[in-house]
């Protein structure tokens, strides 16, 4: 599905992601790491919002190393950023509709599915997205990405700052999205315990370098600590 070969990326003068190799298939793949480890930078790079400094990026057998973000999005990479994932001056419904400008399935079918998944936002469909609570806007951001009918969904800390009750249900939804819609998911996460519950495989980032990729089932505390370089 997605293959990264020796990718480097970062910002004007700073290389954050340093020669990373990654191969993600039809699975939930968690990217762990401390603050500033480079998780968001990696996801934004995969979404083609940050240019590659070197390396190659392949998605579904096509080279997307140089394409602009709208092309990779049109080919099926949905992206939910850590912050500013909504259009505040549009209503919830309009936020969802702008997601549905690509793809061939009927907009209303997709809307029904998203609202079934997140009933709370269905009730607030006519509210301006800028007035939603943190948790609600996460759901809208996620819903908007799902409206794009992605093959791969990049979720950047979708549960940061949410009440524990919401965190649990959000992770359940992530599993559900993966299972019922056959969407691969790359999930950046601080919360290792939770991430290991939903993920098939994990990688730990530390200062932009990746640990070995591990199966979530046989990750041990030692292995994790080694990844975090604590």
């Amino acid at each position, binding site marked *: 599905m997605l293959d990264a070969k020796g990718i480097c990326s970062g910002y004007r003068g700073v290389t954050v992601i340093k020669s990373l190799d990654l191969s993600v298939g039809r699975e939930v793949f968690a990217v762990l790491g401390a603050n500033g480890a480079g998780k968001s930078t990696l996801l934004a790079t995969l979404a083609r919002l940050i240019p590659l400094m070197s390396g190659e990026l392949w998605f579904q057998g096509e080279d997307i190393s140089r394409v602009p973000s709208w092309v990779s999005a049109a080919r099926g990479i949905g992206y939910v950023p850590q912050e500013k994932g909504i259009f505040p001056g549009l209503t919830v419904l*309009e936020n969802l509709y702008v997601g549905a400008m690509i793809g061939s399935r009927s907009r209303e079918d997709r809307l029904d599915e998203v609202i079934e998944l997140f009933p709370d936002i269905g009730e607030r469909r006519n509210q301006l997205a800028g007035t939603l609570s943190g948790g609600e806007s996460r759901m809208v951001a996620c819903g908007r990405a799902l409206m*794009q009918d992605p093959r791969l969904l990049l979720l950047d800390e979708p549960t940061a700052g949410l009440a524990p009750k919401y965190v649990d249900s959000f992770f359940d939804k992530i599993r559900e999205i993966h299972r019922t819609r056959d969407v691969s998911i790359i999930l950046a996460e601080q919360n290792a315990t939770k991430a290991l519950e939903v993920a098939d495989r994990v990688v730990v980032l530390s200062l932009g370098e990746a640990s070995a990729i591990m199966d979530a089932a046989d990750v041990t505390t030692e292995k994790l600590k080694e990844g975090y370089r604590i």
Partner: protein
Amino acid sequence: MSLDWLSAFLIYALFTVAGTVGMAQFLHLQMGLAGIGNFGIVGFFGLGMYTYGVFIRRIPWPDAMGDILPFVISMLAAVVVTALAGMLIGWFISDLDGDGVLVGTLGFATVVYSLALSEKRWTGGAEGMAVTDPVGFGTKGNSLFWLGLMLLLVVAATYYVARVHRSPYGRLLVAIGQNEPLARSLGKPTFGIKLSLFAIGSAGMGLIGAIFAVMNHFIRPTEIGIEVTLAVMVGLVLGGSARVWGAVVGVLLTAGLFDIVVQIYLPLPDSWYQITLPVVREMVFGAMLILVLLWRPLGVLGDMRRDKLVARLGRG
């Protein structure tokens, strides 16, 4: 039907107000929806005007072509040149933030003004150049003809804005204006969309400028001062971009009230027209702008749109 009540002065005032509404509609798309604060309106207006003038006056059109063909070609040239300039400016400002866009577009208008002044060989410099009217319906008939054409253009622009408002494209423009980085991952070419929006808006403003040149019979730098930009801006902000009619209502309440009602129907001393009135006009516009931003930041038609649009979406 007698048209005596339509004085030449009134026709001209109506024409100016209509042109302002037209430009406000194009600004509606750029600034109201996509959030690109174009302060170079008069630059595109002036470029259209001068392109028309330079083409019609400086090309030795053979007599065999008559009057109409050179006119049409020069008009087309004005549209094409302003569209290209719009694309260039759009590309130049595409990565700038709001302040950068303001400075960039304002700078463009200044460049057009300076060129109009300095390139005497082409533009006639400060004295300007006369352009003849290609149609022959008599003095009043011609003015009415151009007024009609301008009104037609305004209706077309308003219709287009109404279409955009109701379309997914319009929603995408708002999305780009609100959060451009996020809009880039929606799967639509945001950069190209912004460029084409700028090209369309600029071409529209340029066409209005070119028609203005013909109506005015004369092209000179005093026609392309910052007041043109201000009138369009104030009108749109006053009416608000939330609704299709915002630009129309806003311009009628500002330029319309002032240029038509005050200047034509109020018994003011003649000596006021040269200096006092233009100054008062700018002051009143400025004051209105402040009041609107304080009390109704979305314009006088402000919050009405949300309810309507939302109601429609809710049903869908």
